[in-house]
């Protein structure tokens, strides 16, 4: 009976993951916090484990599916091809399906490898974390300098964007909002890109349905590099998959755009899976949604960890099928629909949510974040420097 309840919970979560995954601006952390606030009521009807699996299902399916809007929406004008993201570049060449399939390969392969390596990772974390615990601020500071230094186009703009995002992050986190990160991230990484995309004359060409050629060597080196850098980065707060990707790219020879898609998606999954491991080993989840899973379930013991891994495996299969099927639908739809109208409706939807959930204070953060989010694409520097919004507050908090 418990198994049936757990499976049903997982499937409901997967269903919710479809919604959060393909809707830009709806982040799983936000939905997870909503579930947490409803949990005492929900727990009268279902067990904490079932509720935990709802979030796991949603998180895994979301991780697969969010590459669809990331690829099919927000593409800039093809004239700006130098600054365009790898997924958008393939989309503009009519290979959006191939771009998403590469992310599916990365996500699935990384997840399988992470499941297999879980015992090793637990031992590794238990050994390494006490060693670096006291030096986290220095490591983060060094990495931030490294990210800005490695910016190929304008180091000055990279530094300025990092600092501005950092100051905005500090102000936002001291505002006392319930969901401070929602208006911040929606503005920085969501609405800004969509606004630029509306301004451009984007013509999405007819999309081909072709499967990418990924050599064993390319796949192996990319996934290995993702697992190593992602696992190490998960011990440090504030470092997301995009920073891990910058480090990982240093260790992967011949890092082309399509290979980067595999690396980035693999890192997203490594980040997710490592959250389970860190939650079990050092009682710290690095992913918002997984932290909520921990809060609902309580103490994560061996059995709970095994159950979470089982849930991840089931959701992996569902996520793969759903993503491949939905990408085919999107590939056909994209050439028929009015791209501008889609972008405008998403901006209206997200802005509405910000007003509803965070009020006027949220709107101030959201508008400032959106303006700041316009800078990296306009100045041709990486968007990941905007992660200063979390990194700077964390470094200052640890140092002062």
């Amino acid at each position, binding site marked *: 009976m418990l198994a049936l309840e757990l*499976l049903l919970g997982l499937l409901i979560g997967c269903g919710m993951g479809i919604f959060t995954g393909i809707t830009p601006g709806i982040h799983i952390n936000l939905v997870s916090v909503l579930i947490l606030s409803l949990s*005492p009521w929900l*727990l009268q009807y279902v067990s904490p484990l079932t509720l935990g699996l709802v979030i796991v299902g949603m998180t895994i399916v979301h991780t697969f599916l969010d590459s669809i809007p990331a690829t099919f929406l927000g593409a800039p004008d093809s004239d700006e091809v130098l600054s365009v993201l790898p997924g958008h570049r393939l989309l503009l060449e009519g290979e959006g399906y191939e771009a998403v399939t590469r992310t599916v390969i990365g996500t*699935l392969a990384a997840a399988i490898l992470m499941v297999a390596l879980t015992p090793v990772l637990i031992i590794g974390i238990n050994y390494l974390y006490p060693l670096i615990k006291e030096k986290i601020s220095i490591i983060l500071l060094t990495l931030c300098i490294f990210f800005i230094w490695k910016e190929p186009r304008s180091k000055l703009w990279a530094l300025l964007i990092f600092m501005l995002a950092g100051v905005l992050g500090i102000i936002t986190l001291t505002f006392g909002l319930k969901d401070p990160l929602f208006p911040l991230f929606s503005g920085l990484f969501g609405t800004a890109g969509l606004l630029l995309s509306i301004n451009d004359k984007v013509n999405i060409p007819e999309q081909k349905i072709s499967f990418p050629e990924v050599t064993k060597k390319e796949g192996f080196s990319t996934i290995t590099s993702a697992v190593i850098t992602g696992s190490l980065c998960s011990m440090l707060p504030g470092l997301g998959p995009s920073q891990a990707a910058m480090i990982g790219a240093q260790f992967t020879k011949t890092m082309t755009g399509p290979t980067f898609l595999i690396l980035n998606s693999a890192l997203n999954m490594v980040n997710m899976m490592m959250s389970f491991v860190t939650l079990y080993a050092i009682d710290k989840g690095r992913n918002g949604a997984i932290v909520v899973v921990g809060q*609902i379930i309580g103490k994560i013991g061996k059995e709970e960890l*095994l*159950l979470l891994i089982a849930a991840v*495996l089931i959701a992996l*299969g569902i996520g793969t099928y759903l993503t491949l099927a939905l990408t085919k639908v999107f590939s056909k739809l994209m050439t028929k629909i009015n791209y501008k109208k889609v972008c405008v409706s998403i901006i209206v939807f997200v802005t509405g949510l910000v007003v509803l959930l965070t009020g006027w204070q949220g709107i101030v953060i959201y508008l400032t974040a959106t303006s700041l989010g316009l800078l990296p694409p306009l100045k041709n520097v990486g968007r990941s420097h905007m992660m200063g919004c979390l990194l700077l507050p964390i470094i200052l908090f640890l140092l002062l």
Partner: protein
Amino acid sequence: MKEKKLTKIALLCSLIGILLLLIIAEQQDISASNIKNITNATLDQTVQIKGKITSIKETPAVTIAQVQDSTGFITVIMFRKEGAILTKGMLVEVEGMVKPYNDKLEIEAKLVKVF
């Protein structure tokens, strides 16, 4: 790699996952977070439950509440400080020690969080 191979791997993952889930769910009980899992085996252990207060009684020394979740209900004993702001219908998370009282089990709350 072809699409068929990818979907085969995905299917295999799901099947292994279902099998693992069935085995774990069959074996136990799993979490002490359910009221039904609070048995003599958890006596004198710290447990954590979440649920709704269905009745509450205050005495000069303690507050006695019935907390219900999807699996059952249990009596929670709170000393004045913890029980001061609680009312019937509130959704709470209780962490405390399982103690026997009149042949029944109850929780002596150490921490009560209201949602």
